[in-house]
């Protein structure tokens, strides 16, 4: 019984194909144009890798910003539920999940079954979101993936005062004008975002084990910054970026097993 999960975010689209024994394949592509096209593309990529076709997929759950526009999804689930489900499946010890998404960040409290107990979104204003990192990376003429390594070279502590993305951008431009060492700026950027995210996570009281999901989690600089602000170690998921899609696929599995239960009985 093969199922799929499809997570269309505001920056990237992810697809996961699984069966009861685990993940068969996955794919991640940047979002371009309408979410529907992105969904088709990323799912095609995943199916190709798994060497299957649409017919083989008995159930698909969609999630993420564009979840309403995934043509082939049989059902949709919120990112929150999916990230919770996915993270606990990847690591059963997880009780707190911090997801830094493109448009918004969330802190989620879960129980052992991966059910959401409580969650909070980031405060109004976008500091503390992936988009914030993306815009600033652009200003620094770096790619999102480079940020982590660059910040590792940071030498001295620097503070970003401004919480507004665009003004923070101005601020960073003036720092560049002053010839400030770029790794220090990136480090400051990570600490700024981490600070915002930590404030949000503390709101639901962080319980171990805590992990970070979403593409940003692959940014080691961000990961460490968050650890130091929260003052605790973060559990590292094997596949943080596709976690949402994994969760969606797990919901799909649940549906199919529900549907065949009568048969069993």
């Amino acid at each position, binding site marked *: 019984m093969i199922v799929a999960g499809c997570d269309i975010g505001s920056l990237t689209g992810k697809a996961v194909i699984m069966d009861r024994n685990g993940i068969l394949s996955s794919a991640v592509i940047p979002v371009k144009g*309408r*979410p529907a096209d992105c969904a088709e593309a990323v799912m095609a990529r995943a199916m190709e890798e798994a060497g299957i076709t649409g017919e083989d997929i008995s159930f698909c759950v969609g999630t993420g910003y564009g979840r309403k526009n995934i043509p082939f999804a049989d059902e949709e689930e919120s990112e929150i539920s999916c990230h919770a489900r996915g993270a606990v499946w990847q690591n059963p010890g997880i009780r707190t999940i911090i997801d830094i998404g493109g448009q918004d960040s969330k802190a989620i409290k879960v129980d052992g079954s991966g059910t959401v107990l409580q969650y909070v979104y980031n405060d*109004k204003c*976008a500091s503390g979101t992936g*988009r*914030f990192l993306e815009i600033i990376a652009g200003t620094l003429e770096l790619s999102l993936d480079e940020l982590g390594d660059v910040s590792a070279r940071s030498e001295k502590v620097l503070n970003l005062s401004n919480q507004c993305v665009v003004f923070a951008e*101005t601020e960073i*431009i*003036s720092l560049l004008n002053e010839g400030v060492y770029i790794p220090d700026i990136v480090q400051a950027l990570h600490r700024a975002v981490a600070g915002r995210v930590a404030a949000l996570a503390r709101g639901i009281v962080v319980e171990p084990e805590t992990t970070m999901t979403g593409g940003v989690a692959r940014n080691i600089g961000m990961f460490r910054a968050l650890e130091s602000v929260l003052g605790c170690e973060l559990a590292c998921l094997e596949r943080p970026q596709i976690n949402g899609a994994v969760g969606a696929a797990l919901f799909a599995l649940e549906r199919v097993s529900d549907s065949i239960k009568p048969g069993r009985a």
Partner: protein
Amino acid sequence: MLAGGCDIGSLTSKAVLMNRGRIVGAEIIKSKPEPGESAQEVMGRALAKGGYSFEDISFCVGTGYGREKIPFVQETVSEIACHARGARWLVPSARTVIDIGGQDCKAMRISIDGTMEKFITNDKCASGTGRFLEVMAEVLGVSLEELGNVSSSSKNPVVLASACTVWAQADVIRHLNENVPLADIAAGINNAMASRMAIIANNIGIEKDVCMTGGVAKNAAVVAALEKILGVRVKRIRKSDPQIAGAIGAALLAEEKISGGPQ
């Protein structure tokens, strides 16, 4: 006798060369991380166009965020003064100048004799800046110029969360996902922008004529939306690119230096 004006903004850098009140060279480039570098390049290009070299500049005024870092200027002046000066040259009847820069939005009121009476800059969240439109255009996958044209066919513009650029962006994505016509989204963006500008314009008190400088002035829809809110006509700038008004102002100030005192 060349007078130079160099405006190093956070997003774009501009250079203007003048000779006895005539523009003999102008250039716009995307700003580089190093403002000095941007200045060298943009001025270098402007000079090259007319077959000049740096030696030909007898006085140069610098302005913009990076003004302190321009190696070849004799004097620096704030972009607010420069924009006012430039706008007056572009539209001699202008009493109110609205300038949308990359990172801020200014409104200036100028007396009949051309001195600056009052100015206001937008300190609020960044919606209402050129960057706001850039980010939005990017999301819609259209160019800044297109953003203006697309919206012209809009029937009912959307209302955007204009409080914060990124939240507005979230709204734009939502509307895209819900297959709202591009025109209506674009119109919503232009309206949000215009109403932001209107607040600060009304804040200093509008005096006719009103003109608009900066890159956004090229977005016909925003200008139209602004006219609708303010209820006054915004004089279009035809003499040159409104985006280089600041550099023009700087160059004019440089010319004054050369000839000693305003003409």
